[in-house]
C-alpha cells in the first residue's frame, strides 16, 4: 500500500528532512520482519523528543573538559562547570521570559517540579476545606501530587470538565474556583493536543484569590513561552521533551512565593547553616536544589534552547500547525470512517498531537503493526486516565510531531494505518 498519489508532499514552514540531518537517531534504518529496510519515522515526541548532535556534543563537552561538582569548587574546571550550570539557568530564564534567573529551579523532571509545589507550598498553605481545581485533561503528574496532598490535608479537589470535542468546559468555572486556593492545569493536553486558554484561566484563578500552576510540558517545547504574559504563579516543564536530556526538569515560580515556601528536599547545597539543633535554608533557587544537581543535563538543555532559538519558536509553531493540518486531512481522506481523531477539529487550536482510534483495532495492536513499518507511535492511556474514562476508551494510539517531522512522515503514518486496518479487517 502506497500513498494515494505520487505528487510531492506539500511543504511546511520547516524542512524536516534538512533538520533530521542534525538528529543521528533519525538516520537509522529499521528492518521489518518482511526483510525491508525503512527509515525510522519517529512520531512519539510528546512522550519524549529526540535530540540533535549539538545537544549531545554539549554534554560530551562538559564530561570531557569541564565536569566537576558545582558551586563549591575553587579550581578552574569546577568554575567552568558552575558557569555552565548557572548559564543554563540564565538561558532558561530568558527562553521563558522569567524576570529573574533565580526563579528558575532545576528538578529531575516536570513531575518533581509539580510535586515540589504541592508538597512545599501546598502543605504550608492548604488545609481542610480548601480546594484545588484541576481539569479532566490533566496528566497524572498534575493529578496525583494533588491527590496525595488532598488525602493528607483534607483538601477538596474539583474538576473542570471537558467537552466531547476536547475543549475545557468553562461554563462553571467561577463556581469551581469559588473559595479555591490553587488552579493547576495543562497549557496543552498531551492526549488531545488541545491548547487551553492559559491567560484566561490564570486571570480567573487570580480573580478568585487562587494561585495558578501551569503544566507547560507540552507547550514550552513547541510554542513561544512568556511567563510574565501568562501571569502564572508556577510553570513546570521537562528538558527531555524539548530536545534536552533525560533527568532534568524545570520549575519556574514567582520569587515572593518561592521565598516564602518551606524547603522540599533537604541536604547539601540548600542550607546556610546546619547544627545538631537544626538548619537554616539558603536563598532560592539553592533552597530547592538539594544534592548534586543534573550538571551535564543543564548544559544539554542550554544547547537545546540555543537550537530552538536558532530556528525560532514562531517557526516551530507554524511548522507544527501546518503538519497537523496536513495529517488530519490525510488521515481522514485515507481512512474515512475507520478512524476517529480525538480533540479539537481545528488544527490551529491544538499542538502537534493526534490521538486516534482505529475501528476494531486496539491501540496496542496498531502500534505493533506500525512498528513493523518503522513508524513509532505510542499506545495507551498516556498518563491521563480520567480523560480516557471521559471518552470511554482504555487506550488511544498517539502520533506526535516535532521539528524533525515532515509530510513524508505523515504519509508513512497513513500508509501504516491503512495496512493495520486491512490486517485486522474481518
Amino acid at each position, binding site marked *: 500500500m502506497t500513498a494515494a498519489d505520487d505528487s510531492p508532499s506539500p511543504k511546511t514552514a520547516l524542512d524536516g528532512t534538512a533538520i533530521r540531518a542534525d538528529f543521528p537517531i533519525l538516520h537509522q534504518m529499521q528492518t*521489518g*520482519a*518482511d*526483510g525491508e529496510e525503512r527509515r525510522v519515522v519517529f512520531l512519539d515526541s510528546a512522550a519524549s523528543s529526540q535530540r540533535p548532535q549539538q545537544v549531545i556534543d554539549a554534554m560530551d563537552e562538559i564530561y570531557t573538559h569541564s565536569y566537576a561538582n558545582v558551586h563549591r569548587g575553587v579550581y578552574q574546571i569546577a568554575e567552568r562547570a558552575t558557569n555552565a550550570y548557572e548559564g543554563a539557568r540564565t538561558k532558561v530564564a530568558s527562553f521563558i521570559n522569567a524576570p529573574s534567573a533565580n526563579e528558575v529551579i532545576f528538578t529531575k523532571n516536570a513531575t518533581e517540579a509539580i510535586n515540589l509545589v504541592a508538597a512545599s507550598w501546598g502543605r504550608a498553605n492548604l488545609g481542610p476545606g480548601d480546594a484545588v481545581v484541576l481539569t479532566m485533561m490533566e496528566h497524572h503528574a498534575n493529578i496525583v501530587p494533588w491527590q496525595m496532598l488532598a488525602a493528607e490535608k483534607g483538601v477538596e479537589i474539583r474538576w473542570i470538565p471537558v467537552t466531547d470535542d476536547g475543549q475545557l468546559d468553562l461554563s462553571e468555572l467561577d463556581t469551581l474556583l469559588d473559595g479555591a486556593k490553587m488552579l493547576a492545569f495543562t497549557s496543552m493536553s498531551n492526549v488531545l493536543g488541545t491548547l487551553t486558554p492559559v491567560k484566561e484561566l490564570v486571570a480567573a484563578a487570580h480573580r478568585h484569590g487562587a494561585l495558578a500552576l501551569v503544566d507547560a510540558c507540552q507547550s514550552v517545547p513547541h510554542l513561544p513561552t512568556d511567563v510574565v504574559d501568562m501571569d502564572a504563579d508556577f510553570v513546570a516543564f521537562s528538558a527531555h521533551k524539548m530536545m534536552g536530556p533525560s533527568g532534568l526538569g524545570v520549575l519556574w515560580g514567582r520569587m515572593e512565593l518561592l521565598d516564602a515556601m518551606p524547603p522540599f528536599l533537604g541536604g547539601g547545597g540548600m542550607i546556610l547553616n546546619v547544627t545538631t539543633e537544626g538548619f537554616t535554608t539558603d536563598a532560592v533557587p539553592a533552597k530547592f536544589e538539594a544534592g548534586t544537581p543534573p550538571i551535564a543535563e543543564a548544559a544539554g538543555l542550554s544547547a537545546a534552547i540555543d537550537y530552538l532559538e536558532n530556528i525560532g519558536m514562531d517557526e516551530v509553531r507554524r511548522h507544527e500547525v501546518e503538519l497537523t493540518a496536513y495529517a488530519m486531512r490525510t488521515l481522514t481522506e485515507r481512512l474515512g470512517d475507520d478512524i476517529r481523531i480525538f480533540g479539537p477539529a481545528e488544527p490551529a487550536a491544538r499542538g502537534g498531537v493526534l490521538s486516534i482510534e482505529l475501528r476494531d483495532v*486496539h*491501540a*496496542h*495492536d496498531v502500534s*505493533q*503493526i506500525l512498528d*513493523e513499518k518503522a513508524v513509532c507511535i505510542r*499506545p*495507551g*492511556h498516556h498518563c491521563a*486516565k480520567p480523560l*480516557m474514562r471521559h471518552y470511554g*476508551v*482504555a*487506550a488511544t494510539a498517539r502520533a506526535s510531531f516535532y521539528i524533525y517531522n515532515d509530510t513524508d512522515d505523515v504519509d508513512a503514518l497513513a500508509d501504516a494505518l491503512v*495496512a493495520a486496518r486491512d*490486517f*485486522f479487517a*474481518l
Partner: protein
Amino acid sequence: MAGLEDLYREIILDHYRSPRNKGELETPPATRTEGFNPLCGDEIVVYVDVDDDGIVQDIKIGGQGCSISQSSASMMSAAVKGKSVEEARKLTTAFKSLMSIHEANVGGDGSEAEADPDAELDPSIKLGDLEALQGVVKFPTRIKCATLSWNTLSQAFDEAAAAN
C-alpha cells in the same frame, strides 16, 4: 502481514473477534476482580463463581484490551470453566511459564516477580489453544498483555478463598 504471524495467529484473532464468556456475573455469589496493565491502560474484569467443591462453575470476562490480552482472557475462560481451582492454578503456572522466558527483561514494576522461569512444566498439563500465544514471547512488551487476565484470575481465587 509478514513477521507478525507469530504474534497474531489465526486462533488469537478468532478469540479476539469472538471472545468467549464475555459478560458479567452476579456478585455474590461470584467474585469480581479488576486487573490493570499500567503500561498500556488495558483493564480487565474477571467474574468467577467457585462452588463449594472448589469447581469454577462459571466465569465471565469484562473490560477492554488489545488482541493479545482479550484473546488470552477468552482462551483462559474457556480453559478453566468447569475445572477445579487447583487445576486452574496449575494451568496458570504452566501458562505463565510459557510466557516468562523473557519476562525478566520487561519488568520494572515487580508485578511478575513471582513467575519462576525455571519452573518445570507439569507434563500432564495441556495448554491446547493457549499454545498459540507462545509467539508473544518474541515481543516482550506484549507479554504483560498475555498474562494480565491470568494474574487477575489468581487474585480472584485468592479473594474468593479469603471471602470464605
